[in-house]
């Protein structure tokens, strides 16, 4: 297993470098550069000003040289400096990463737990009113854009009922500590995490349901039933466990998408995570910061994929690690 992990890590690093190079050129294809954006915001733009900014950002150097400098930095674990924000990229991402991880992992947990639970029920009671209810419920959340769910959530739970805060990570100025602080953050987390989680929950519900219905028809389930096992045991041990494989695959793929989805959720709820950092960096053409966020996101996807592969093995002992 160790050699499997080592192999995957080496491959991951190569993929990561390829992503860096590709992204480096990709973001430079968009018109406008950080100097232009900053000159625009300053409401003043003379040649000296723009030239100064380009020199400061290193944009006056030839493109291959810029790439070399950047890749050299990344290899040495240095993600560069955001001249716009006057801070090292690693520091900026480091400040925001915990908030994003908190949001995405909570959303992920909510979506998986609810998705599998609802999917199992729908499959168990396939064709009944409960099944239709769950399927429609899932479909609604799958079909609604995240920003819409977010805004409706705010209207309902913040404006109309005043139960939950509409924005932010914590109550600004409250200076809470310990448990009170944790509860405050949790209260702020509910809406963004549910918004993000419900969308993915919908897919897991449908995937679990479909997969379970498929497995249910297989011979070994009949055998289990013939053995006289109770329905609950058959569902849990035989059907669900086998039906989970595609769900795990999907969850692995989603781990990356979750961060993408977090861009919208973080923007609407003013959640100070890297999704928003990425969004701002993109609009401001903050190249180093944007590349830095891409590197971290790609690394997270690679790590999640590795975890998915390991989880496969836990879920299904028949799968072996090829070395």
């Amino acid at each position, binding site marked *: 297993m160790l050699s499997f992990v080592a192999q995957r890590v080496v491959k991951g690093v190569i993929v990561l470098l390829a992503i860096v190079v590709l992204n480096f050129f990709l973001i430079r294809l*968009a018109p*406008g550069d950080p100097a232009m954006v900053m000159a*625009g915001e300053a*409401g003043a733009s003379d040649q000296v000003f723009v030239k100064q900014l380009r020199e400061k950002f290193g944009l006056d150097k030839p493109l291959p040289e810029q790439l070399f400098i950047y890749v050299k930095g990344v290899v040495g674990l240095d993600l560069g400096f955001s001249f716009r924000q006057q*801070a090292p990229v690693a520091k900026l991402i480091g400040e925001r990463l915990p908030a994003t991880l908190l949001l995405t992992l909570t959303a992920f947990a909510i979506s998986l737990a609810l998705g599998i639970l609802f999917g199992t029920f729908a499959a168990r009671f396939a064709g009944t009113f409960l099944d239709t209810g769950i399927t429609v419920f899932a479909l609604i959340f799958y079909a609604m854009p995240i920003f819409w769910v977010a805004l409706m959530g*705010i*209207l309902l739970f913040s404006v109309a009922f005043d139960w939950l805060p*509409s924005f932010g990570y914590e109550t*600004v100025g409250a200076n809470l500590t310990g448990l009170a602080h944790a509860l405050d953050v949790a209260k702020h987390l509910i809406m963004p995490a549910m918004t993000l989680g419900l969308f993915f929950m919908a897919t897991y519900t449908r995937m679990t349901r479909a997969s379970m219905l498929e497995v249910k028809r297989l011979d070994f389930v009949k055998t289990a039933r013939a053995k006289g096992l109770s329905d609950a045991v058959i569902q849990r041990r035989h059907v669900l466990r086998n039906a989970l494989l595609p769900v795990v695959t999907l969850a692995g793929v989603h781990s990356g998408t979750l961060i993408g989805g977090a861009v919208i959720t973080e923007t609407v709820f003013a959640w100070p995570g890297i999704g928003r950092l990425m969004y*701002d960096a993109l609009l401001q053409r903050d190249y180093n910061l944007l590349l830095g966020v891409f590197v971290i996101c790609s690394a997270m996807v690679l790590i999640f994929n590795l975890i998915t592969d390991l989880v496969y093995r836990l879920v299904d002992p028949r799968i072996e690690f090829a070395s």
Partner: protein
Amino acid sequence: MPKRVLLGLLLACGLAAPALAQEPKTGGTINAVIQPEPPGLMLALVQNGPTQMVSGNIFEGLLRYSPKLEPQPELAESWSISEDAKTYTFKLRKGVTWHDGKPFTAADVLFSIEMLKKTHARARTNLAQVDKIEAPDDYTVVFTLKQPFGPFLGIFEVGSMPMVPKHLYEGTDWKTNPYNNAPVGTGPFMFKEWQKGSFIRLVKNPNYYEKGKPYIDEIYWQIIPDAAARSVAYETGKVDVLPGGSVENFDVPRLSKLKDTCVTGAGWEFFSPLAWLWLNNRQGPLADKRVRQAIMYAIDRDFAKDVIWNGLGKVATGPSASTIKYYTDDVKKYPFDPAKAKALLKEAGYKGEKIRLLPLAYGETWQRWGEAVKQNLQDVGMNIETIATDVAGGNQKIADWDYDIAFTYLYQYGDPALGVGRNYISSNIAKGQMFNNVEGYTNPEIDKLFADGAVATPDSKRKEIYEKAQKILVEDVPVAWMLELQFPTITRCKVKNLITTAIGVNDGFKDAWLDK
């Protein structure tokens, strides 16, 4: 005195009396929205809107300006001008200290100006007429100009010329100076904390030179990236101040009807943002003056003001906003007249060539305005194609002259020599740059008028020159002027005296207080 007038006066005095009697109360916190999150707070290095809005509390300039643009003391307590209008002497306020306790002196002024010349594009232009700056003593600064420069007294507000602490910046690499992230100024509020992506916290400067001020204990600038979420934050009572431009225009009528909510369009007199359409004079149908005039007649600007801008602002009559010096409305008028527009297009021989329209990527309001203008122009038979970009892409296209019609709005800074001439003089045509003469208009007479206007004396002579320039420009339509914008500031009515100068919320909250 007629009775009615007397009654009016009495009523006015009676009504004014309680307001005058209302003593400012001290204490409390103001929660305001800042959008977008500023890239930095060091005003001498970063000059965008949000930076000034926050840092206007931390830093100060030598002067402030009243809503009528009259200079008022700030770090300079008085000033005098020599007979030949070439020497300006400023007497600095004594007893002013930086937030770290060091005294503020003339040496700081000299250092700030040297730094700004290198880091602040607008300051560099504003100071071009300065021959030398001297500090005969710690509290006197003397500017000697190469020639008289009419708008000189108008370049000293905090955003145009912020004072920088010499003792913290001299001999350092300004770009990486640690104080950029924890700025030290002389202003009424001190920087305390910045949680990136969440909020910026400023606290009262207890040693502020104006005794008793500021009244407020602290300000939280909340960072909320989504416009709808900012509206909700106000609605649910989480923020008390929405500075101009924080929410989409269509939310303004709804929010202004909320209980205890006050709305004002004041505080933009110095900037006088004027919205117009860049018209690429170089090529295609728009090279013909008649087509440009047709555009002016074709666009329903009253509709834009009343519907898109909720009645705030004013339809522009020409290159100068009515709030800045030497404005005249004695110019050719362009009322909404589609028939006349069609006739002019026909006369110019326009045959439906495609015209690219670049809206401004500043959110829904501008998007809608772009759609309205497109419809107006299509109604008179123009073939309009909208090009969608983000802000960076749009800036690049305009700077590279890769457009036909493009939305913009620019500040005018109180004087035509500072904020108007730059867009029409031919020496300001430079590809790759924004906000200069990107439309490519060339007229030697206009070049001469703006060159003369900046240095002419006395004032009446400047007036004559600029009025003439306005007349010529309005006839030629180098760009299509739309509206004098007013960005409504929405506050809880308990926030008093928030806007007292010509730059409004950008000037710091030193006079503001909470009527709890």
